[in-house]
């Protein structure tokens, strides 16, 4: 008991001397009010500490403090390293997923010469860390929305032979099938490429072109 009282008195004395010293170096601005609030809180904490100890709440106090500060600093929980590890793993999966999506996007860009509308890529990965196949790609779904909405017919093309390349820049030198977003061609091409690039079976890759 004597030891506890001694500690308590030392705590209060040192904190108050320290705060007194700090008072002199606090910048004299509107900040002072806010600093005083916190200093006041500190003194309350130091003074009520024995009551807290009697009720055996000291651990609770620290836990609550760490929990709140961890929450505020958005690190999840500073006291709980397990949760931080979990958070990091989640981040790693997210990065992995984004990289895969970017890779698929590049493949599609390389395979479709004409313009296309919105592209949506859905990936299903094994996200369970406990699982043996953690990180395995379960299935890939690619949906390409055709912007134009209609098939462009390229039949009669007038070429101004004598005008040179500048006048002919709008001329499309491709077959109709090749120029338009063709569902079946894209399906097979992109599917092939994706399965080759990711090293997965073609059966779990689905490619769809929506008009």
């Amino acid at each position, binding site marked *: 008991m004597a030891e506890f009282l001694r500690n308590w008195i030392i705590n209060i004395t040192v*904190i108050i001397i320290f705060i007194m010293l700090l008072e002199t170096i606090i910048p004299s601005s509107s900040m002072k009010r*806010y600093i005083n*609030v*916190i200093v006041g809180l500190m003194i309350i904490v*130091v003074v009520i500490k024995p009551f807290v100890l009697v009720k055996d709440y000291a651990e609770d106090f620290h836990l609550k*403090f760490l929990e709140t*500060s961890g929450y505020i600093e958005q690190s999840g929980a500073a006291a709980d390293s397990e949760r931080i590890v979990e958070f990091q793993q989640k981040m790693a999966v997210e990065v992995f997923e984004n990289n895969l999506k970017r890779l698929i996007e590049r493949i599609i860009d390389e395979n479709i010469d004409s313009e296309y509308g919105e592209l949506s890529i859905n990936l299903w990965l094994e996200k369970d860390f406990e699982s043996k196949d953690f990180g395995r790609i379960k299935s890939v779904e690619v949906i390409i929305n055709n912007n134009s909405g209609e098939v462009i017919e390229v039949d009669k093309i007038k070429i101004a032979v004598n005008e040179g390349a500048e006048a002919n820049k709008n001329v499309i030198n491709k077959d109709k099938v090749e120029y338009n977003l063709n569902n079946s061609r894209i399906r097979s091409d992109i599917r092939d490429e994706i399965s080759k690039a990711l090293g997965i079976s073609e059966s779990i890759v689905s490619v769809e072109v929506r008009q």
Partner: protein
Amino acid sequence: MDIMKIVMTGIIAALLAVVLREEKPETAFAVSLVTGLVIFVFVITKLNSVMTVFKHFAAKANIDILYFSTILKVIAIAYITEFGAQICRDAGEGAIAAKVEFAGKVLIMVIAIPILAALMDIMIKIIP
């Protein structure tokens, strides 16, 4: 003597700034900014050793380091905010200075929140 160095730096910079303000106000601002930074860094290194001694004493007196670090953080935020706000005010940007001060206040409050939360928790538990 350190204080002589700092005062001389301040006076020379002030003279320079006064002369330059007529010709090139933006350079005058740069001079005051750099001077402020130099003095700030110089003093911060001194303060660092003082803080080390304080921490040593805190450990010796068996005081919770939590209280110390919180108070020190608050003081540091107050000083840095004040420094930034004054530089902004020097440049004639009172509005930005006010925003900087506002940010400082919010950050100080954020530091206070864990203490407040813990205190509230204890209070609620103590009262049956």
